[in-house]
C-alpha cells in the first residue's frame, strides 16, 4: 500500500501524507455527480494542492461531472487512453501512477516553507 496514493472510496478526510487522490470511475462504483459532501471533500483536496486522478476503466468513465474536475487520467484500456489523451492532453494521461509528478504543494521545499510559515518565521 502506497501512503502517498489515496483511493477515494468514502468522503472521509484524506490523510496528511497523501500526494495523489485516485478517483475510481463510475463503472467501478466511483462517484458520478458532484454533490455534497463530495464537493467539500474536493475543495479540501484542491486547497491542499494534491493530484486528482481519474481511474478510468471504460470510455463512459470520462463523461460524468466528477471526471471533468480530475486533472489526470489513469487507465490500462487503450481506447480509453486514446480519447483521454485528446481531451486531457498526452502529458495528463498515464498507465503508471508512479509517473505522476510530486504536487508542488508537497515538494520538500514547499513543506519546509509552510512549516516555517506556521512557526511565524
Amino acid at each position, binding site marked *: 500500500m502506497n501512503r502517498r496514493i489515496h483511493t477515494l472510496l468514502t468522503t472521509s478526510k484524506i490523510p496528511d501524507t497523501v500526494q495523489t487522490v485516485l478517483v475510481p470511475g463510475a463503472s467501478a462504483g466511483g462517484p458520478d455527480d458532484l454533490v455534497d459532501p463530495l464537493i467539500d471533500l474536493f*475543495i479540501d483536496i*484542491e486547497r491542499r*494542492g494534491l493530484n*486528482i486522478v481519474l481511474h478510468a476503466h471504460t470510455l463512459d468513465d470520462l463523461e460524468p461531472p466528477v471526471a*471533468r*474536475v480530475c486533472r489526470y487520467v489513469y487507465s490500462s484500456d487503450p481506447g480509453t487512453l486514446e480519447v483521454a489523451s485528446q481531451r486531457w492532453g498526452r502529458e495528463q494521461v498515464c498507465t503508471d501512477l508512479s509517473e505522476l509528478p510530486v504536487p508542488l*504543494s508537497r515538494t520538500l521545499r514547499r513543506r519546509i516553507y509552510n512549516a516555517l510559515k506556521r512557526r511565524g518565521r
Partner: protein
Amino acid sequence: MPRTVNLFGGDQSGAAPRFVSPLDQGLLVGESVSDLLPQVQGLTADLNGLAQMVAASGPIGGRTLFEGVYRVQPGETLTADRGKVRRSFNWEWESISPTTRDVSTLLDAIIAEVDSAVSAHQVVSMLSGGWDSRMLLAIADRRQAASRIRALTTSSDTGTIMEELVATQVAQMLGITHEIVMPHRNSFSEDLATFAEAVDFQTSFHVWLVPLVRRLGEIHPDPREAVVLDGLGGGLFVGGAFSDPPGAGTVMDKRLAGATRYLEGAERVLKGPVIANFSEAIQSDASDIVRRYLDHPHGHILSAYLTRTLPGISLAPHGLVRQAARIATPFVSNSVVQAGLSLPPEDHAKDRLYPLLMEQIHPELASLPTAQAQVPWPRPHPRRITSIEAIRHLRSLILTDPLHALLAPELQEGGPSYWRRTLSTTGGQHLLRGLAMLSLWWRRYQEEVAAFDIETWLR
C-alpha cells in the same frame, strides 16, 4: 450589415462595439471591423493598435488594428466631415461623484437590470466561482422559474479547479441545472482561431470561453432563444478591482504601470527595442486617459474601464458570446454605474460591497466563500496553455515571418521547456497569446494590408 450615416452617437457604456470608417460621403458603421473592411480603401495597419493588442488588453482610445477604422468610445459622437471623422464626447459617467453610503440604490438598480434582461427568455449563466456571476444568477433565480435557467462553467485556465467546484456549490444551493464544460487539449488551436475571428483579432483575453460558447450553441441552436448573463464590469463598478496599489510612486505612475504590466519580464519574449516601442505605444494613449481622471475620486475605475475593460474584456461577451445568444451585461448599464459610482471608493475596497448586497438577495450565498478566497498557492494543476499541444501550436504561429524578427533570441532558440516556463508567468503568457493573435491577424489580412512595417518596432 454596415450602414452609411452622417452622424453616429455611441451609448454611454460603449461595451457593445460599434465601428466606424469615413467614406467620401458619410460614415460607414458596423458591429464588427471585418464588416467594414471591404469598403475601406488602402488598408493600412495601425501599429499602435497592434502593439496595444499584443502587450496591453486591446487597441486603446478608439483605435482598431487598422488606420481609418475607429471603435466608438463611451459617450462619443462622430460626424462625417469631407472624408474625415470629427469626434466629440459627452460621457456622463465621468461626472458621477460619490454622494451616498446607502447601497440600496445600487441593489435596486442591479435587480431591475437583471429582471428586464431575463423576462421572457431562457436564461444561461456563465457561472464562475466569483461574486458577479453568482449575484446575477441569484437575482435571475428570484424572477424566473428554475426550469428556464441553466448555468455553465468552464475552466478559466488558471491552474485550479476551484472555480468549477464553487460554481457547482452555488448552482446546487439555487437548485439550478449546471454543467461543467471541460476544455479539451486537442481543440486549443481551433478555440484560438474561433476566438480571433469573433473579436476581430483585437484581444487575446478570455480565449477559454470558446468551449463554453460552443456548448451554448448546442443547447440553444437559435441565438435568439436564450439570454446570457455576463458579469462584465462588476469588478469595477461593484467590486474593488484595480484599486491603486499601496506603496511609493505617484498615482499617475501606478496607473500607467498597470497598463503596461504585461511587459514586466518581456525580455524573455521580445527584443529590447520592441519592448520599448510597445511600452511607448501603450503609454501614448493610456497616459491621456489616466491624466484626464487623475483627480477624479473614481479615477482608477474610469481609467481601468477605458484602458482594459473596453478594449479587451468587453469583446468576449459582445464579440464571441453574442454569436450564440443574446447578451446582457447589467453591471455596465447606466443605472448600475450611476449607483455604483455614487458610493465612495472606500466602500468598494476589498470587494466589501458584494456580501452586503448578496445578504439581501440570498443570505446563504453571501456567506459561501468565493473560489478566489480559497485558491491554493502554488496553483496545483498545469494550465491548458502550457500543455505540449498548445505549445506546439503557439510555436507554429509565432516562430514564423514576419514575427520572428521581433522575438528575443532565447525564445527563438528555446525548446518547449523554455516556452512552458514563459507561459507559466502572467506577462509571458499574455505576450505569447498576443503574438499568436498577431500572427493569425497577419495570415488573415496579409494580402489586403498595403502597409505593415514591422521593422518600425525594431528601431
